[in-house]
């Protein structure tokens, strides 16, 4: 019966159908316009509902992501994206969650979302930063550097200076982790050039300089920190260590003393201070000391070098005393291969040391102007040789070695 009704209705409707082609097209155009408007209204309402649902799911996803529940966050962001597939914030958040979920298989998908976003807004700093982090996860230095730079020079919605600085610091840390020190250093120099007067930032920059062993710039940054915050114990310690590495022992002593005063628990500063003290107390070239004191220091250094030579030879199994080795001077115990290469220089130094020993008595003679330098040169050679053969020295020997290195650097 319903079919009959439909047939009759269709027949009646067909009576109203125009038969002139232009009229038919006019009617069709009107019908299409009406249908278009109706569907448009429907789609708008549906999209509004979907967007509301998407926002709710996105909020859930963000909560999950902040709580490091990345699997839940990924599911929520995916659902949010089904509600509004074109929302770039959802895509970016999903990509971040995929990246941070520590599943290498998800990096491809994360990158795919981010590349799609990047193609739409290549200047977006947040997208570039996310891409940089994906590349950093992969250990790809070139891509990571490129995207980090894009992020630095890209468009930030707010607080662009601070964001750019943080991105550069992140890039530096990534480069340091990948042992790309030269690249890292150039980034740190760029960072230092644009720092606001903030002691914390200068301190961080100084530490980064110290990490790449650029102690000169590190010292400058620590000094800047102390200019802004004159009681900062970390800056005292850092400046002291930087000065120590630069062999500026007077400055190092000053900073380290302040560091130890400010923080007596700082064992590293205390140890360095001791070392600096030894250097300063044993340095025969220190200005404003009397001749007698200088001679005393030379004699002490000579004796210490002799002891160091003997200990090192014993450590390597080399007998420096010919009378105890069956008449053959400098015989070497067979199993110690390393001794083969070390024996001859050590023996030569021992001979020179023994030959030089009687001349110590002539130190007070005014005519012997070259003698102090000859003695100290031998001391430095002994310290350097034993350091390379027997490992880094401690205490007085370490001080002598540091003085020798400083002299060498000054000579060059």
């Amino acid at each position, binding site marked *: 019966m319903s079919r009959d009704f*439909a047939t009759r209705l*269709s027949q009646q*409707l*067909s009576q109203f*159908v125009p*038969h*002139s*082609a*232009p*009229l*038919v*097209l006019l009617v*069709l155009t009107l019908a*299409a316009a009406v*249908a*278009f408007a109706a*569907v*448009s209204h*429907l*789609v708008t309402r*549906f999209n509004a509902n*979907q967007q509301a*649902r998407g926002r709710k*799911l996105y909020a859930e996803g963000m909560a999950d992501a902040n709580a490091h529940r990345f699997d839940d966050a990924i*599911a*929520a962001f*995916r*659902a949010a994206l*089904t*509600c509004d*597939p*074109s929302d770039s914030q959802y895509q970016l958040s999903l990509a971040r969650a995929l990246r941070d979920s520590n599943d290498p*298989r*998800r990096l*491809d*998908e994360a990158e*795919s*979302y981010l590349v*799609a976003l990047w193609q739409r807004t290549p200047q977006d700093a947040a997208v570039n930063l996310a891409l940089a982090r994906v590349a950093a996860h992969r250990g790809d230095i070139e891509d990571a550097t490129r995207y980090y730079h894009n992020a630095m020079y890209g468009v930030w919605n707010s607080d662009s200076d601070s964001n750019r600085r943080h991105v550069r610091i992140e890039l530096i840390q990534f480069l340091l982790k990948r042992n790309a020190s030269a690249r890292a250093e150039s980034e740190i120099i760029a960072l230092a050039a644009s720092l606001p007067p903030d002691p914390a930032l200068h301190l961080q920059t100084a530490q980064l300089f110290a990490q790449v062993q650029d102690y000169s710039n590190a010292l400058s940054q620590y000094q800047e920190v102390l200019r802004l915050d004159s009681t900062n114990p970390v800056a005292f310690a850092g400046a002291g260590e930087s000065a120590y590495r630069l062999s500026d022992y007077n400055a190092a002593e000053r900073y380290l003393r302040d560091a130890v005063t400010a923080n007596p628990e700082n064992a590293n500063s205390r140890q360095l201070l001791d070392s600096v003290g030894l250097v300063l107390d044993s340095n025969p070239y220190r200005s404003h000391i009397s001749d007698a004191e200088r001679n005393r220091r030379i004699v002490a250094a000579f004796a210490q070098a002799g002891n160091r030579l003997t200990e090192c030879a014993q450590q390597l199994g080399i007998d420096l005393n010919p009378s105890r080795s069956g008449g053959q001077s400098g015989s070497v115990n067979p199993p110690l291969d390393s001794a083969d290469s070390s024996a001859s220089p050590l023996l030569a130094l021992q001979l020179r040391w023994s030959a030089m020993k009687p001349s110590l008595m002539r130190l007070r003679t005014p005519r012997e102007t070259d003698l102090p330098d000859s003695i100290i040169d031998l001391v430095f050679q002994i310290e350097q040789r034993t350091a390379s053969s027997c490992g880094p020295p401690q205490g007085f020997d370490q001080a002598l070695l540091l003085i020798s290195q400083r002299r060498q650097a000054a000579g060059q």
Partner: protein
Amino acid sequence: MTMTDPVPVPTAPASVFLRTPRRLFTSLEGVFHEEVFFLILSVFIGIFSGLAVVCFRLAIDWTHLALLGPLPHSHNWRMFAVPSLAGLVVAVLVMRVFPGIRGSGVNQTKAALYIFNGFIPFRTAVGKFICAALAIGSGQSLGPEDPSLQIGASIASALGRQLEISREKLRLMAPVGAAAGLAAAFNAPISAVLFVIEEVIGRWSAGILGSVVLSAVSSVVIVRWFLGSEPLFRIPVTTFKRPTELVAYAVLGIVGGLASVAFAKSIGYLRPRLKALPRWTQYFQPALAGLLVGLIGFLGAPQVMGAGYDAMDQAMHGQFGWKLLAILALLKILATTLSFVSGTPGGMFAPTLFIGAMLGGAVGDVERIFFPHLTGSTGTYVLIGMGVLFAGFLRVPMTSVFMVLEVSGNYEIVVPVIVANTFAYLVSRSLQAIPIFDLLTRQDGLILPSLEEAREETILRVEDAMLAVPKTILNAQDYVDAAARRVQDSPEPAFLVRMHPSGWNTVSRDQLQRLFQEGKGEHTLVSVLPPQTLPSLYPDLPLDAALRYVNDYPLVPVVNRANSHQLEGVISRDSVFQKYGQK
């Protein structure tokens, strides 16, 4: 002025406005002859189909959200309760309100073209819209593309009937609407046009191509206007570097071909058996299928429910290991078979793509385990796998290639796609003689033409029935008595006469003898023969072309295409029938 003089009527501005449209319409009538009108109508079909498909997709999304929630996950009671309950509702609607909407809709559209003069009831569009949206939205393992195709075809058919266009054009309305519906659902106009030509129309027809293209493009424009131009899945970077890697893709093609056969055979085996069960069971078949599909989702594979585009997207980005990919492919074959054979309205395009994607990813990952130097990413294998199943299961080789290229927008992988699809197609064709859509049509008692059949059909040509050039060829200037003497010893009953400056005629032995007896021996043949010119045939023409002439003429010359004076042979009625008899 006299009383008989016509009274001048002042022309009011209003009447000018009334008359102008009428004049315009009258002048436009001449412009809109049927061909042009049909083309313009194709655009409107595209627009209406596009709008319908937009609503259809919204309906599926809304149903999915309402029934399964925004975050469907395993071990949720809804996963198996919803598809089975929705299956019950769908079954009642299909059995009671909308009969004839079972299955995908591709066969019904093809049947409308070849059997029902383009008639598809509008009720079909309504029923398909409601039931397919409910089924797919509730998680049945079916896709929205084939129903969209049928909805488009149904709208076009209804429009054609209402406008009372000619029967010939009405017959073509269904494929035009089908292309619009499929293009809108797939967001891929080229693939839609090719599919309709390969599968629905089943032959290349220049007459309809323009309309099909216009409707497909206009429907895609509408869909993109409302739903955006985002692809169905995000395409990762796909590369093809070394030609030697084609072997790996060929292996994928073979595996995909075998999977296609398994999928097609399972549907072909189960469908008629379930249909043969008592009618009352058909009320419960969709519900049972829904229960089983839901159980698969409940137990840990929710990806197989619904169309599965999200899962394809994840597979394309390497989210699943090869074991999970292989399991999902198997489960999807099972789930889709259950959903489809139960008579639930829905399409097989999306499931085919899903199975291909998972299988492609699995094969690619396994190959890379054994051959780590292979450079193709998981995404590349997933994408090519989709085309492979399309070629193997749906048996539309051209569409399968263009579908992958159109969806990916990447022509770099065209060679692997062609290689893999060809292998899949060959494997499938050798193990499963009848393509799936033809199989379903035959199970429904209909025999429809297919492009695959046409491709494989041996066509007889004129050269196959052509006889050698006759020994005796007369000239138009020959005298009748001389001609009669020349043919005296020849066994043939009729002879060709070469006319001047060109053309051919025939004369029979009896005709020559009669002319001679009538005392016309001194006349030339051209003066006594009726002024006719024989039609010429070319060797490469289908033999059917010769049938038009062999009854009227005893001999028909077959000439060279490059030189019409050069005779290649002759055709006679006996030679044509003999050839057909041999066949």
